[in-house]
């Protein structure tokens, strides 16, 4: 086996280990939540590392959630906020996105000396080219059929 094969295998091991660590870091809190949700109040935070093992199950907490609180009201509030944020955000952001894309297209056609009135000042050409290079990522994300992506 060539040394480069060795190295790539080593690299894949390392990246695998890193991925496992990242998974643990992300799933740990979630697991903590699931392990602790059936415990009594005092016991959730005082157990030390044993808090990660599920134990002492009671349904008391869930009874409290639905009896003691107006959970549906809170959830409806959450849903209202989510609905407003998603609809308004989507509207505004997609308008902004289309405006940006339109601007890019115009700058390109100007830089090619396109169909508009010819503008021969060096400055505007350079500015358009800079702008185009700045936004190359946009065309890699939203490739257009009529124009190849240059990397």
């Amino acid at each position, binding site marked *: 086996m060539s040394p480069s094969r060795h190295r790539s295998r080593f690299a894949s091991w390392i990246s695998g280990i890193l991925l496992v660590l990242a998974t643990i870091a992300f799933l740990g809190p979630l697991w903590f*939540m699931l392990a602790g949700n059936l415990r009594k*109040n005092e016991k959730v935070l005082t157990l030390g590392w044993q808090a990660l093992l599920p134990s002492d199950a009671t349904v008391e*907490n869930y009874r409290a959630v639905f009896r003691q*609180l107006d959970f549906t009201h809170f959830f409806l509030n*959450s849903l209202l906020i989510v609905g407003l*944020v*998603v609809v308004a955000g*989507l509207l505004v952001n*997609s308008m902004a996105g289309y405006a940006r894309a339109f601007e890019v297209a115009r700058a390109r056609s100007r830089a090619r000396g396109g169909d508009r009135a010819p503008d021969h000042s060096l400055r505007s050409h350079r500015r358009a080219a800079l702008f185009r290079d700045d936004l190359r990522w946009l065309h890699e994300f939203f490739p257009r059929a009529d124009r190849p992506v240059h990397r």
Partner: protein
Amino acid sequence: MRNTLIFVVMVTTILSFRLFDHLWILTQGGPQDATTTVMFESFVAARERNQVGLGVAMSVVFFALVCLVALAQHFLVRQERQAK
């Protein structure tokens, strides 16, 4: 752009469910819990009222509900795509 929009909608939905800071600053749950959301109540229960178990149980229920919402969106989008 379609896939981008779908992705944005799903991520925005999940992320805006956990809205907390605006509420904390503006109304603190508001007049008689009128503006309280689930995340806010679970934090207040655990931190201010020392009912950690209640807070945890609430966040588990909330987690399940958010999963349901995300799955519902997923299936709605897929159905619509198949209908086309």
